[in-house]
């Protein structure tokens, strides 16, 4: 058996990456994992969940003109247990924040979150000195995968975000920001 010498300190991330390739996983699940990632990325069921203005654009994206169903994301599930992606559409008020956290915890993994609109990125137009009611950024509550700027973003931007999310899912662990 070939002996692999492990350096004691591997601070350089590049080293770790090389080492990983040398050692390799015990069981190769790559193919299955890739297939599943493909399936997951093309069947993103969003949670029926609108917070404010952007929710209307989210509904518009699901309606006939834009039709989220084309890319498999049109199955809006009202129950968090059956949803894959949480589209945070609109301003998150502080009163709502714990509820969103609960909803996020109720979703079964693998799960993703899209922050739609400026308010969910960092407070957007509602961020100003003296603001007392909103959460300045959805990533203070849930880990966000894709951000969509705009006030509100056009439905096309939501599509673009879903495509970006698909890319991210398909890349799996190899994904780098």
């Amino acid at each position, binding site marked *: 058996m070939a002996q692999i010498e492990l350096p004691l300190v591997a601070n350089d991330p590049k080293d770790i990456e090389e080492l990983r390739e040398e050692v390799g996983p015990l069981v190769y699940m790559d193919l299955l994992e890739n297939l599943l990632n493909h399936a997951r990325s093309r069947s993103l069921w969003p949670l029926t969940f609108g917070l404010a203005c952007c929710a209307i654009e989210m509904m518009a994206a699901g309606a006939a003109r834009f039709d989220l169903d084309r890319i498999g994301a049109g199955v809006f599930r009202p129950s968090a247990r059956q949803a894959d992606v949480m589209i945070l559409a609109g301003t998150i008020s502080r009163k709502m924040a714990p509820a969103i956290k609960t909803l996020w915890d109720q979703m079964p993994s693998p799960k993703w979150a899209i922050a739609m609109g400026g308010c969910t990125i960092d407070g957007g137009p509602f961020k100003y000195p003296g*603001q007392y009611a909103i959460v300045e950024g959805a990533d203070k509550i849930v880990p966000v995968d894709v951000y969509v700027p705009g006030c509100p973003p056009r439905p096309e931007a939501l599509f673009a975000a879903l495509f970006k999310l698909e890319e991210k899912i398909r890349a799996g662990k190899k994904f780098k920001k």
Partner: protein
Amino acid sequence: MIADKLSSLLRDTTEVQYDARGFHVQYTASADTLPQIADAFLSENFHLEMITCQDRRENDDAFRLIYQFNQYGMPQRHVIHADIAPDATAPSIAATFPAADWYEREIFDMYGVSFDGHPDLKRILMEEDYFGHPLLKDFVDPPNPYRSEDDAS
């Protein structure tokens, strides 16, 4: 007529220019006569359009409650100004106009003005455990995890 009924209750009546201001008559009343005023308006088929409040502690050392009554059909807006001292309570008119229930809760939430005789005076817009009254002029938001760190800049 509403004016006759109110004349004994009110201190100061000002007819205002409707075209410029959007309402017709402005009164100043003392806070404890509010329930009688509300009764008078109810009997004359007025509805309570809104209640709001101003934090005038800097100038007049008082909270000014503003009651606005209106009529269906021909609009006839009567605005009542009632000043109360910062630590005083105002009588609730929720028994006469149920619409006042939520407006009074909102004022309690935002300004900390308490209303005597309100059926269920609690916060309406902010969380129940929030402290501070946001619309006060000297309000400072307590530190919390939901605000960006770079907010200070």
